[in-house]
């Protein structure tokens, strides 16, 4: 049985799954319930001077029939008095001494930082997370992402905190910045023990087409909010990777953003996170998702022969390279498994209209065929194909050659003028522009026109053309 426990910058936890600082960690009641369900730790809903929230706080992004693939909120930090929170932290720690309780904090002055850090330490917190991320409401008051976006200010505040902190300090970073490693380095310079990322991304999740206002709507109006949920995972993964690869950061990373199952967690860990935090998924499905997360991670570790989390923290990092280091001699092309193909022709239209005209239709069958000479190996067709393993990308080079852009640059063998002979697409077949005109028009015409005969006489004479 693999060991899921972690020691994150000195914070011990029975597993790497923590609830992120957010509504699920609003109260001792919720945190106890989560621990009871199997969560390893919880970052308490950010404490500070209690706020006043608006009513109507969340907006969602649905994709087709899938709800909340993206989620945003215009909520602020905790609206409950500090004393109540401290009392509950103490109670939780008494009942769950081996679980991680991390207090998330956001205040303004040095004195406030000192006071609140002492308070949460006395309450028995295992660690502190500095919320430099909230992208709405708090930043306008000089807190949250207003701090996270200014490495110098961030560093100063971390220093203030370190003056009194006796427990590990995590700095939570905002993604609303062009280079995430800058605040990460500032956190290190200030003496922080770890970083966590990402907080929410500034966003408008949608506009009401009848009320002409952004979601969530508060009395006819809205504001930009913070974006999270499955849609932000790719952005989070990249930022986690950037921090993990930066030689000047070298801090434990708590990965956050779009984690909803063991797979998402494993990806964060493979890119350098050694604990993970979850918010949206717990808000959507409740604490019960933890069972699938731990079971999945355990299964994965067993299959890979990993005994502890640390056996695979950052394991994918050596394979994340700069583009210029990738092998230009590597060549794949698409291959269609005719027995699996169901004839939707999505691959055909995708490659025809959106890629390289490397798929053709065939007489007598709806299964398209790859024109291998034209296939650049972009993967598009295999991504759109609805049938599992129907289009596979097959390796075509013999694996003996290796040449990177960097090497070509060094060897002065790269295109440098506008019409350079060395252009990658120069010897690639491209159809004449005019060959597009009328091609397959009968297939993309409205069905009625198609059904009623040749395209020419179907175009303008239909009654509905007359009336609409």
């Amino acid at each position, binding site marked *: 049985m693999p060991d899921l426990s972690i020691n994150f910058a000195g914070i011990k936890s029975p597993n790497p799954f923590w609830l992120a600082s957010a509504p699920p960690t609003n109260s001792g009641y919720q945190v106890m319930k989560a621990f009871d369900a199997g969560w390893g730790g919880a970052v308490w809903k950010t404490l500070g001077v209690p706020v006043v929230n608006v009513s109507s706080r969340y907006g969602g992004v649905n994709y*087709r029939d899938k709800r909340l693939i993206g989620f945003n909120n215009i909520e602020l930090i905790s609206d409950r008095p500090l004393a109540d929170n401290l009392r509950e932290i103490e109670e939780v720690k008494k009942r769950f001494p081996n679980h991680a309780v991390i207090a998330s904090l956001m205040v303004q002055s040095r004195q406030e930082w000192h006071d609140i850090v002492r308070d949460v330490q006395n309450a028995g917190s295992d660690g502190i997370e500095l919320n430099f991320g909230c992208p709405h409401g708090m930043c306008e008051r000089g807190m949250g992402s207003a701090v996270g976006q200014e490495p110098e200010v961030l560093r100063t505040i971390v220093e203030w905190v370190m003056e009194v902190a006796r427990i590990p300090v995590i700095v939570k970073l905002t993604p609303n910045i062009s280079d995430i490693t800058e605040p990460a380095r500032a956190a290190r310079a200030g003496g922080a023990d770890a970083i966590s990322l990402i907080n929410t991304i500034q966003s408008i999740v949608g506009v009401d087409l009848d009320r002409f206002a952004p979601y969530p709507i508060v009395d006819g109006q809205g504001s930009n909010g913070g974006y999270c949920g499955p849609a932000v995972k790719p952005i989070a993964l990249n930022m986690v990777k950037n921090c993990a690869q930066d030689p000047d950061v070298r801090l434990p990373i708590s990965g956050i953003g779009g984690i909803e199952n063991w797979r998402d967690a494993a990806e964060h860990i493979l890119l350098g996170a050694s604990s993970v935090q979850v918010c949206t998924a717990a808000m959507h499905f409740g604490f019960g998702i933890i069972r699938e997360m731990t079971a999945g991670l355990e299964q994965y570790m067993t299959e890979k022969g990993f005994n502890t989390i640390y056996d695979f923290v950052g394991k994918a990092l050596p394979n994340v390279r700069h583009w210029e280091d990738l092998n230009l001699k590597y060549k794949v092309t698409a291959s269609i498994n005719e027995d699996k193909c169901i004839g939707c022709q999505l691959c055909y239209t995708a490659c025809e209209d959106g890629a390289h005209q490397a798929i053709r239709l065939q007489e007598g069958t*709806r299964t398209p065929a790859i024109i291998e000479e034209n296939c650049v190996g972009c993967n598009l067709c295999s991504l759109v194909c609805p049938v599992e393993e129907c289009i596979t990308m097959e390796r075509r080079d013999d694996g003996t050659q290796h040449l990177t852009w960097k090497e070509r640059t060094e060897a002065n063998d790269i295109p440098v003028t506008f019409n350079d002979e060395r252009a990658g697409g120069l010897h690639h077949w491209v159809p004449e522009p005019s060959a597009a005109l009328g091609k397959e028009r009968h297939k993309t015409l409205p069905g009625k026109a*198609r*059904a009623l005969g040749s395209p020419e006489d179907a175009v303008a004479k239909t009654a509905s053309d007359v*009336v609409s």
Partner: protein
Amino acid sequence: MAEYPTPTTEQEFAANFAQIKPLMSNTEALYESSRCLFCFDAPCIKACPSGIDIPQFIRQINSGNTTGAAKTIYEANYFGNACGKVCPTEVLCEGACVYNLNEQKPIEIGRLQSHATRKVIDSGKQLFAPGAANGRKVAVIGAGPAGISAACELRALGYEVDVFEARAQPSGLTLYGVAPYKITNAETLAEMDYLQMQFGYRVHYNQRIGSREELAALEEAYDAIFLGIGLGATNALLLPGEERQNCVGAVEFIEQLRIGHEQVQVGRKVVVLGGGNTAMDAASESARMGAQDVVLAYRRGKDEMGAYEFEYDLAKAVGVKGLFNVAPVEIVGNGKVEGVRFIRTATVDGQVQVVPGSEFVEPCDMVIKATGQAKQTHFLHLIPGLQLDGKGRIVADARTGQTTNPKYFASGDALNGGAEVVNAAAEAKQTARGIHAFLSGN
């Protein structure tokens, strides 16, 4: 058997004839439309006789534009709502859906289609309007799927249209023939009202055109005449005892059922003669009306029945029993039906031959003859120069629907010999354009 108690109220009737393609809720439509792949050159479109742009309307439902979806549907097929419910989708659009090839459930195209059109019908939104009047007039005989579709398209093209209908209500066999578990009367008529409200053609009910004089008057008053008269009564069996009480034709029985609902009486044991879709319908309907036993008797083997497999499955599911390789020789009884004398048959070289000495009587108290509908040849012979083919079907130009009397055009069952609502609707739309081309000289 007796799975269904005899209905005595409208509610009980509705329960026995619960819709097999019930209306979808918005959520169900969202989920189902989400599954559609938006195939290129989609096979479902090609399998639809009216060529509805299926991926387009499904995408419109999915993006919250149900009105646009309904418009896409109606642009191709004026019976869009009825077709979604009554089409044999298993052998048309849904049968062609690529998901079948992956052994996954095909998209429920029919139900999505009815969902979108029903929404727009309920809302009463105006999607279409008559075209600018062109001063010409067309008479339409028959307010079935063919006649009404032609009327809509002709109005859109600017014609004045008068529809002459023998019955009291529009939609032809959609109302008087299709099984009640496929579509309700209210649904059928709501679509008819919706179409008439938008296109504004006139319908003259209870006006059977039946004489040369009436036809001559139409020829005089109108620039063209559209024949959407469908088929006629059930073919006679020409067997002794056929006149006995409780020996009825299937279309006549079904017509009564659609109008009378729970007031219609069926026997305790019903024998249905025939192996086509109408036979399956009549058998299912008898069972749902509370008949204790329903026997479906067919001259050949089970696999040779003309009915779609899913139609036979529907009948089997309500307890109908098959009696194959038998030919009726006499309806026995004393005033009333008491049974059918059959003789067993064998198929030799594709020919049905009787097995001598194998006669037996299957007792019953009702016989439904589902032996096909006769053509309206008597009426059609009143039209000068109108040619019929060997099977009594009107001969017409395949693209324009123009008959051998240039003033007359035809579509639907009268032309194709009996198909589906969707065929009649699609053909009539095309024929309306044929009329337009003829009258506007291009």
